[in-house]
């Protein structure tokens, strides 16, 4: 079918019913459940992440010797969707668990895995990802931050922007140019950078909701030990793109606004059944697509195209939920409102523009899909 295939695999989740109940019981008892958040995976709460870690919920799929649970990625899917459905503040560990763990498992040295993975699984270490630069956004391959190999290690000069939680994280996975003569996708490498390194400075970039999540990170001759290179020098682009399917296909790509719909039933918001039905139907479709991608990943495939499609469609749903509910709201949306639904709608309206930008802008994703369809 048009070269984009999604086998229906929802039944693969049936095996994890008991685990789902365990996660629900944990969430019901946790104090975070009393303050559900919209876009909850941007909400940084290290204490909550540590409570999850104590349950063994971080690094669920990783080898036990690195602090993981050796469970299937479909079981992890169940965990993630339950966390998101509860609006739990999972932002502290989200990127580390989703991307850094799999990256180190795939490309890291044994020493790197042993040093970092168990501490990520215990929610002791949080990572950010250094990709965008002042002159390189969607055109990531034009990035110019450079690391030069010297006898004492890599010397990094350059600047990253839109780096989420850099001010709260311990390390960064930095994508930079290690071959100064290289162009575009060649000559890029990934380094693990200690955020406490001399020469590394941060400047907050408050977002439109007024929250401090983004940062500008400046590297002024920052020394990074040679053994902090991830994988192979010059192989950075391939390494980054190998994680894209994990990054783009998960339930967080269509559930950022779900807590609003879930909360509706507990309020007097008069959403017509027809509108709830439309949004629910779209959610059911996206969930089936996302489970399908999780199953492909579990089978060892690399469904980057399919993941791009999930994110493209999912961000539209996440944004539409805020729009539809706003149109039925009797009071002005206010992030400080005592009314939970009002507050969730306000949070969503202030976060929603980012949904179709973060992790690959809609235009980029549609370009990927168009290529998959043979249009380019």
């Amino acid at each position, binding site marked *: *079918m*048009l070269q*984009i*295939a*999604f*086998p*229906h695999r*929802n*039944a693969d989740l049936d095996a994890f019913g008991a685990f*789902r109940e365990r996660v629900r019981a944990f969430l019901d008892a946790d104090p975070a459940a009393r303050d559900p958040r919209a876009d909850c995976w941007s909400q940084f709460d290290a204490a909550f992440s540590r409570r999850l870690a104590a349950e063994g919920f971080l690094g669920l799929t990783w080898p036990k010797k690195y602090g993981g649970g050796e469970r299937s990625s479909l079981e992890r899917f169940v965990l993630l*969707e339950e966390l998101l*459905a509860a609006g739990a503040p999972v932002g502290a560990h989200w990127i580390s668990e989703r991307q850094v763990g799999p990256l180190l498992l795939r490309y890291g040295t044994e020493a790197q895995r042993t040093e970092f993975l168990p501490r990520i699984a215990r929610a002791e270490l949080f990572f950010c990802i250094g990709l965008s630069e002042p002159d390189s956004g969607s055109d990531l391959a034009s990035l110019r931050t450079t690391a030069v190999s010297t006898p004492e290690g890599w010397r990094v000069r350059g600047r990253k922007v839109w780096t989420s939680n850099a001010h709260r994280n311990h390390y960064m996975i930095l994508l930079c140019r290690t071959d100064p003569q290289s162009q575009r996708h060649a000559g890029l490498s990934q380094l693990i950078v200690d955020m406490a390194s001399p020469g590394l400075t941060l400047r907050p970039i408050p977002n439109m909701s007024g929250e401090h999540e983004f940062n500008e990170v400046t590297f002024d001759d920052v020394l990074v030990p040679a053994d902090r290179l991830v994988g192979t020098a010059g192989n950075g682009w391939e390494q980054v793109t190998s994680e894209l399917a994990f990054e783009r296909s998960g339930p967080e790509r269509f559930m950022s606004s*779900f807590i609003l*719909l*879930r909360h*509706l*039933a*507990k309020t007097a918001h008069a959403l*017509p*059944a*027809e*509108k*709830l*039905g*439309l949004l*629910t*139907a*779209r*959610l*059911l*479709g*996206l*969930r*089936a*697509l996302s489970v*399908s991608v999780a199953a492909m990943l579990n089978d060892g495939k690399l469904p980057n195209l399919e993941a791009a*499609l999930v994110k*493209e*469609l999912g961000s539209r749903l996440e944004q539409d939920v805020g729009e539809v509910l706003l149109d039925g709201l009797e009071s002005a949306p206010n992030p400080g409102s005592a009314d939970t639904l009002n507050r969730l709608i306000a949070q969503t309206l202030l976060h929603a523009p980012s949904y179709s930008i973060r992790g690959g802008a809609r*235009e980029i*994703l*549609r*370009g990927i*899909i*168009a290529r998959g*369809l*043979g*249009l*380019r």
Partner: protein
Amino acid sequence: MIEDNPVHASALRALAPISTIGRGNDVPAPDAWTGHWPTLERDGFTLPAVAAELGGTGGEPPDELAVIHACAAVAARCPLPETAVAGALLAAAGHAVPAGPLTLVPPAGCAGLALVDGLLEGVATGVPWAAQVGHALLPLSQGLALVTLEGCVIEAGRNLAGEPRDSVRFHRHRPVAVLPDASADALLLRGALMRSVQICAAAEQALKLAIGYTTTRVQFGKPLASFQAVQHQIAGAASKLAAARILLDAAYDALASGDAGREIAAARINACLAGGECASVAHQVHGAMGYAWEYDLHRHTSAIQAWRAEFGPLTYWAERLGAQAMAAPSVDLWQFITS
């Protein structure tokens, strides 16, 4: 995946002779397919998911999905989908399936029918292929009625795609059987799913034509497909279609294991959304060419629009799914989605 089922490929081959009827400038007679029916019946395509002892091929629900999808994919205009689904409903009620093509009527078309002292009285409207089939399945308050259409007065009509949608007058007409355990709602659900499968198949063909056309048609010195404005429209429509398609599989999987109400409503809603966008985008990127009778696009897009209105439009299904979600146990939407 629908195409992974070998029944799909064999159905495409079997339906090829019917698919050529009405192409180009030809306006087909409504019974142009009838000469090919005995072969379809003999080769087991007409009742794919009906048990052999009840007259069918003995396959599984996904075989029915494959046959209906193939039929719409090649725009083969004949009552094969209706026969497959009416047969499956009869079989589910334990009733033997009569030979020959069958039809089933949306509940909305049966509002003017009454069963009085065991005899059917009134007019059924929007009856697919009434003049060409032997038997019809009618949803009534007493259950599903299996009737012959012999001796009825039939007034011919057509839908947007040119398929017969007739009015049938019944007078003191005794049904072959009334199946009290088979509900009108079961017929509505299966009919809506049938049309959803057809919409998805037609939408995919519309997009394939759009991709083929825009990658070859040159304007401003380059193929239309090299323009991002064109690429992104098609990519957006294809994304919606992917969601609708996977829900077809979900619905047929659910049918195999019992209650498929939630899955069918979701499939129907997504099929209507995707079908509309695929048709619209396919026409837009084709320019005037897609508007020409001689070009194939309208065979798919007119059918999409016709099928969106049969067996309950999007609004009906969205209201129904929304009401179910709000009434879910402990009124928890998440429970409803994951149960």
